[in-house]
């Protein structure tokens, strides 16, 4: 018999006992779909967390951070935690630097006419819309002169404006932030950037960085973004600025370029999600093993039930190998179908998690491949003993068996 006939004959055997075959593959199905969903959740969550933690910045930008903010534990009292105006002036003097900016992110209460709403505050340079990703849908963006003059101007996200004002006109209205009045100059729609966005809300306030520092002088400037002119060696320029900053504060360890920090952070988060995936994955793996035991059990029952069939096949010229292959194919086909159905269910589950519950998921091709290989292996391992038992049956006893 060639493999196609063996496969067809195994398929016929599986189909002739539909309910039993389905129940047998159920263990594998559940195990595989659990693994696919869990890995998708783990990977999606990891990507979303990293995207959220990494503060947005423009292309061709060197990001410099006070090193102390990167280290775990409480800061030393004498450590630098924030950039000063002198630091910015210093960085601006380097040739090859196009602009130096900083952004501030925080929570602030916005009040108007007795209404108070908690919102996310983003402050930065006049091109903040490119960094924090929003589009001005009404009114105007703040200008470089607004920034330089510390003007009390804000843009609100439409959902926030909706909550604050009753009338239709929003531009030109006044809101209170940090006890100071600010004029609304525009409405800005934040872009949905990452999958955790669902949890972060849609109420945003955007204003010039200088204005924000006036309102909240105690907020530290925890990052310096240096925009580099085209053709300039980023790494070299970054190193020179960091060195100059460290010399200025007499601390060789005060500032650091952020690449290494983010790489480390991604590694840490990766480790955490790997452990999470591994722990829950092994529970799903146990489900797979239990499923495999079920397959083996049913295959043993099937061999006993079909003892006479085996005898007949042997009398018609089936070799031991043909009998072995027949039962092995059947067992592998059961677990493989279970695996494929499990992958489908797992992928569906991941999409449901994303669409209905809002959890970020990323279906992993690796998890699918590994699941399918693993379920095939389970079929092989759990099928080999029953198949071998079938192939070793004494044909005379098998023929007599009723």
């Amino acid at each position, binding site marked *: 018999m060639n493999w196609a006939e063996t496969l067809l004959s195994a398929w016929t055997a599986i189909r002739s006992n539909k309910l039993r075959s389905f129940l047998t593959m159920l263990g594998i199905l559940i195990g595989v779909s659990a693994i696919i969903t869990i890995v998708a959740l783990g990977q999606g969550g990891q990507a979303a967390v990293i995207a959220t933690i990494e503060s947005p910045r423009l292309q061709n930008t060197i990001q410099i951070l006070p090193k102390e903010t990167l280290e775990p534990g409480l800061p030393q009292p004498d450590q630098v935690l924030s950039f000063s105006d002198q630091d910015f002036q210093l960085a601006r003097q380097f040739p090859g630097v196009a602009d130096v900016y900083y952004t501030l992110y925080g929570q602030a209460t916005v009040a108007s006419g007795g209404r108070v709403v908690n919102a996310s505050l983003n402050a930065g340079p006049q091109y903040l819309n490119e960094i924090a990703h929003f589009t001005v849908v009404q009114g105007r963006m703040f200008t470089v002169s607004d920034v330089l003059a510390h003007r009390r101007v804000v843009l609100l996200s439409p959902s926030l404006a909706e909550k604050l004002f009753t009338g239709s006109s929003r531009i030109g209205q006044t809101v209170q932030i940090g006890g100071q009045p600010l004029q609304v100059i525009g409405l800005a729609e934040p872009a949905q950037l990452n999958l955790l966005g669902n949890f972060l809300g849609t109420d945003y306030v955007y204003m010039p960085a200088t204005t924000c520092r006036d309102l909240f002088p105690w907020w530290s400037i925890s990052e310096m973004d240096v925009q580099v002119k085209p053709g300039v060696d980023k790494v070299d320029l970054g190193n020179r600025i960091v060195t100059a900053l460290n010399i200025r504060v007499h601390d060789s360890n005060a500032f650091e370029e952020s690449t290494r920090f983010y790489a480390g952070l991604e590694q840490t988060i990766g480790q955490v999600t790997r452990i999470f995936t591994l722990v829950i994955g092994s529970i799903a793996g146990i489900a797979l093993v239990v499923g495999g035991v079920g397959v083996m059990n049913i295959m043993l029952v099937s061999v006993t039930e079909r003892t006479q069939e085996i005898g007949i096949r042997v009398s018609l*010229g089936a070799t031991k190998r043909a009998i072995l292959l027949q039962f092995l194919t059947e067992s592998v086909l059961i677990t493989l179908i279970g695996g494929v159905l499990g992958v489908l269910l797992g992928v569906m589950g991941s999409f449901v998690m994303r669409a209905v519950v809002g959890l970020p998921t990323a279906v992993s091709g690796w998890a699918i491949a590994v699941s399918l290989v693993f379920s095939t292996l389970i079929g092989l391992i759990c099928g080999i003993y029953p198949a071998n038992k079938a192939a070793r049956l004494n044909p005379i006893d098998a023929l007599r068996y009723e």
Partner: protein
Amino acid sequence: MIELSGVTKRYRSGEEWLTVLDDVHLTVEAGEFVSIMGPSGSGKSTLMHILGCLDVPTSGSYRLFGRSIEQLSAQELAWVRNQEIGFVFQNFHLLPRMTAQKNVELPMMYAGVPRRERHRRALELLAQVGLADWAHHLPNALSGGQKQRVAIARALANRPALLLADEPTGALDSATGQEIIDLFLSLNVDGMTVVLITHDADVARRARRIVRIQDGRLVSGAGEEGRS
């Protein structure tokens, strides 16, 4: 074609050894129609299993087509069963989940006959046993006589030289049984060697030669004197 000399088969039963076949000598020439007749427990089924290469003798030798069966490997024995011997059983032994045609195709599948050729040959064989219209029926839709005809068609699939029938009429009424024996006779006329095992004297009598077996020994018909 068949040469059994001094074939003995013993089974261990607890402390004792049970002798099922005792020093059996039997020669069957190509083209013969032989009945092996004996009461139940006489060892005729064991003899049939040895003839069919499903079992091996404890001692003695069995030569089939001039080859010593005891020297063949398991794979070679499977090949002999597949190519040179056709089996017909008392309870038909059709595979219940396969249509008549698929059952007939089974020995050809193990022989590696291409699909198209298998289909053609199976339909031809079913027509030969008078079941051309029943090819796509499952065994449980067929009568006993029809099932046995399918089994005979299956036994003939790889054009074996030897047909072994173990009580082929045992599960059939006497009229249907006669028809099956008629079929064997017509196959024999076309050159097929037939060895038929039965406890029924009426069935046995229709063969050209009767070998009687009792308590594991051949009591008559083993040699030349049995031939008519």
